[in-house]
């Protein structure tokens, strides 16, 4: 039994789109009209020719089985990946056999596909052989790491001093100082090569103007920042797992080093957070056999979509390699053994009380943790004043929605999906409340993305 012939759903295809405009343009090309010579192979390749405004039709090929995610090639001049032709072609393919029959690739598509397979094979052999590293390189790297650690130590010490000054003068005074204070301190932390500290300092500036209750929130964040400073300054004395967590929270790069875990990974959620310089994409995976939860992060520069895309509701047979650090869900996607295919698996769920307890336990390994990934089983969205909560269908307790989730259109999709009946909801649960990301209706039915 193989999943290779299973076609994706249109939603899953559309989740690959780099932006809204391509999603729409792709949707319009998803009719058989402009296409010819379409076909797909069992190995996850799809191809076709699309007639555009020019005299020569564009040649579009997609390789869904690529190790680094789907790969696209199209003879159109668009610089978007995937372009609208690739999206349209995949939508057509998702529509079924009639529009895109099974077959073997024609010459123009086969060459590129064969080239990709060959390169992937070479890479694998290379990796297996292992690149011999010269001893000089390792020595230089060690010295660089030492210099950086010294700078971070200097930065953390300075930050401790600044926090102490802040507490001595009082947070009320800091509120009047405004953003400038935080921006300047954050810039010092960037100079100290501690991006993790810089981000937290910048966050303090936002907390200070976050409305009623800000003093308590600001004190919490200041205290956790102090805790992180102290953790860094005494990292030698921490257990190895916690020390790794501190290193990654401070902003030192790490590489995945855990033993790879092969599983059928179900894609639970994919969402982007955009700031002017960087788009961060988070993809939550659930190992259907191991029960583990993994987080894949990928980045896109300045308004471009991150390259890795795994639509919700697909499952991929692959290896993921965890990053170091106690209780860290982050992992890197390794080799894929088959193209992602639709799956009707659902993650097992817990009650609201169990979800809150899970967050509490996770703080033991990582006290800086804001949320943990949780699937709630049998909960009902319930209006609560001007907010909403997710209430146990069979109990008397509920988790409030996080403030950020209250104004999203996804909230209404969740409410509509439920209709007052129990649903299964995956999301991030933390001290600010629950942030729903994906929901499944009672009984059977496809996953509905809420983000």
């Amino acid at each position, binding site marked *: 039994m193989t999943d290779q012939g299973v076609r994706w759903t249109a939603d899953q295809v559309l989740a690959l789109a780099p932006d809204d405009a391509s999603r729409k343009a792709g949707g319009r090309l998803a009719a058989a009209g402009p296409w010819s010579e379409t076909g797909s192979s069992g190995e996850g390749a799809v191809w076709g020719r699309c007639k555009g405004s020019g005299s020569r039709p564009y040649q579009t090929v997609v390789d869904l089985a690529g190790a680094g995610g789907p790969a696209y090639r199209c003879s159109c001049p668009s610089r978007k990946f995937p372009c609208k032709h690739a999206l349209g072609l995949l939508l057509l393919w998702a529509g079924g056999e009639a529009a895109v029959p099974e077959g073997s690739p024609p010459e123009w598509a086969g060459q590129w596909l064969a080239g990709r397979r060959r390169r992937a094979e070479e890479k694998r052999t290379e990796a297996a052989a292992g690149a011999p590293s010269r001893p000089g390189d390792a020595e230089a790297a060690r010295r660089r790491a030492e210099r950086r650690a010294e700078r971070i130590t200097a930065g953390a010490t300075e930050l401790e001093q600044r926090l102490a000054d802040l507490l001595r003068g009082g947070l009320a005074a800091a509120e009047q100082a405004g953003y400038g204070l935080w921006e300047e301190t954050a810039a010092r932390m960037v100079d100290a090569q501690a991006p993790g500290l810089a981000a937290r300092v910048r966050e303090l500036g936002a907390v200070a103007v976050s409305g009623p209750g800000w003093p308590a929130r600001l004190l919490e964040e200041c205290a956790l920042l102090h805790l992180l400073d102290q953790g860094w300054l005494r990292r030698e004395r921490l257990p190895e797992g916690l020390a790794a967590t501190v290193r990654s929270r401070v902003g030192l790069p790490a590489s995945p080093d855990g033993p790879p875990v092969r599983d059928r990974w179900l894609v639970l959620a994919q969402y982007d957070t955009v700031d002017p310089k960087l788009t961060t994409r988070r993809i939550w995976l659930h190992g259907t056999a191991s029960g583990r939860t993994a987080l894949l992060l990928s980045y896109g520069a300045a308004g471009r979509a991150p390259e890795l895309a795994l639509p919700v509701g697909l499952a991929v047979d692959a290896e993921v390699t965890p990053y170091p650090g106690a209780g860290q869900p982050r992992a890197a996607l390794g080799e894929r053994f088959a193209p992602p295919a639709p799956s009707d698996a659902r993650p097992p769920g817990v009650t609201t009380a169990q979800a809150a307890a899970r967050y509490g336990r996770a703080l033991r390994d990582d006290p800086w943790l804001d949320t943990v990934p949780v699937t709630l089983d049998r909960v009902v969205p*319930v209006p609560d004043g001007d907010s909403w909560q997710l209430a146990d269908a069979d*109990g*008397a307790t509920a988790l409030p929605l996080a403030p950020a989730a209250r104004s999203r259109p996804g909230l*209404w999709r969740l409410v509509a999906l439920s209709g007052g009946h129990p649903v299964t909801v995956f999301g991030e649960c933390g001290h600010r409340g629950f942030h729903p990301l994906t929901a499944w209706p009672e009984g059977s039915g496809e996953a509905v993305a809420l983000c």
Partner: protein
Amino acid sequence: MKTTSAPADTTAAGAWEELVTAALLGTDRRTPAGCPPGPKAPAALLDTAAVQTVRRRAGLRPAAAAPRPEPAPPDPRPPLPAAAARRLATLLSDRPGTTGGRRGTAPDLMELLPQWLQAANARGYAAPPHLLPALLDAARGRTDLRPAALEFAGPRALWLARLNPDWRFALRAVPGGGASLPDPDDADRIRRLWQEGLFAERVALLAALRARRPAAARELLGTTWATERAEDRLMFLDTLRTGLGPDDEPFLEQALADRSRTVRATAAELLSALPGSALAARMAARAAACVALDRTRETPTLVVEAPHECDAGMERDGVVPKAPAGRGERSWWFGQLVEAAPLATWSARLGGLAPREIVALPVADDWQGELHAAWCRAAVRQRDAVWARALLGEPAAPEAGGPGAVSLAERARLLGTLDAAERADWVAGFIAAHGLSEAFQLLGVCAVPWTASLGRAVVDALNIARDAGSYPWSFSGVMGLAERCLDPAQARRLDALLAVPDESEDAAPGAGGYWAEAFQRLVTTLRLRAAMLEELGPPPAG
């Protein structure tokens, strides 16, 4: 934090409050209990706060659940096929204004939504719940979509609308917020709803009853007629238009004596649509007295002698005495008489001539416009296809295209009295002879999808317009209609038009490319519509 309950330990909560106060004021002014004053105080405060923060977070417990809303009522309709549900999602995501600028070859998906909804409703599918928010948002922005969108959205949409003020319109649109109308046999419930219901509910009840039991509806209205307010009487009277028949005459005759002028006018209008009514006979006598056939002239000619006064009898029969500004009183009265007179009057009056012969008669002293316009209104009111055909004339006749006696708007209304096939044939003939520049309004009354002959005529005319070298956006109205109304099966006939033609000397620069683009969009839209309908499955039988 606010609603997630904090640890119940009140002393811990008090300690935290004290920390926050100290932090707010600064350790120079206050040191909390357990922190040594002096230069070490800030670090000690932060240490304690860090422990407290993690402790508070780790100890979070869920809040008490708020009262749950009543679950949405079940929707017994079968779910949409998966492909159709995805199509709906795509249609709904194409909101106007999001793409902006020129459409290019891309179809206007939002324009297909009404068709999609109609087809889905005809097949009786239930809406996918997670698409309801997008559907309600679309209906909120476009009132014309609301009836079909709300029918499709079903009971869960009303349930949602009670929770979100943005969607309140859905509750207003459905009388009683979705309460179903009583069975026509349930006389007690009908009587109670009629006596106690809100105005909108009563109108809905009367209309529903009239559609199935015309006489019962009239009798129900009669029970409270005398006590209704004038505006309400007018609305109720208007529901009698459905299923109007000779049995309604006594009731309408009585309404001719109503206190309200608008009610009287509506009653008169309804009576004149009953050719056998006493009012129709009175109007026939009055109108016939004004028109005579003068056989002494070289060709027999119609002579018009308009009434000299509007007497009390005429007024009672619904003739409005005061002419609008700029119109002569006598021609105003004359028009109303002819409009209300049964058309059968004229054959009898004019020596047994057929309608076509009567329309062809010359009319003396510039009365032709007035007389023919009144006949048109009469033909529409009495739904007389023979007269409508006579007044429309041959579609290819030269005066049909120009500003003749019958305006385009009147023609469109006359076409409405013919059956769909005849209507389409007439419009096809009109387009073949006169092109598209005047055709927009006429195409609007044709049934969708267009018949093969009408579709062919439109495509041929577009082709001719292109060869004539004009720009396609001069025909954007017709193009838009064609995208929505052409039979998808016709798409193949358009293939030849998709290529960019060589530019001829007298063509507008670049027009060829734009035409190719417009035709591509047309074909893409047609294919999309075919796919759309196919996804929804076969239409219900009958």
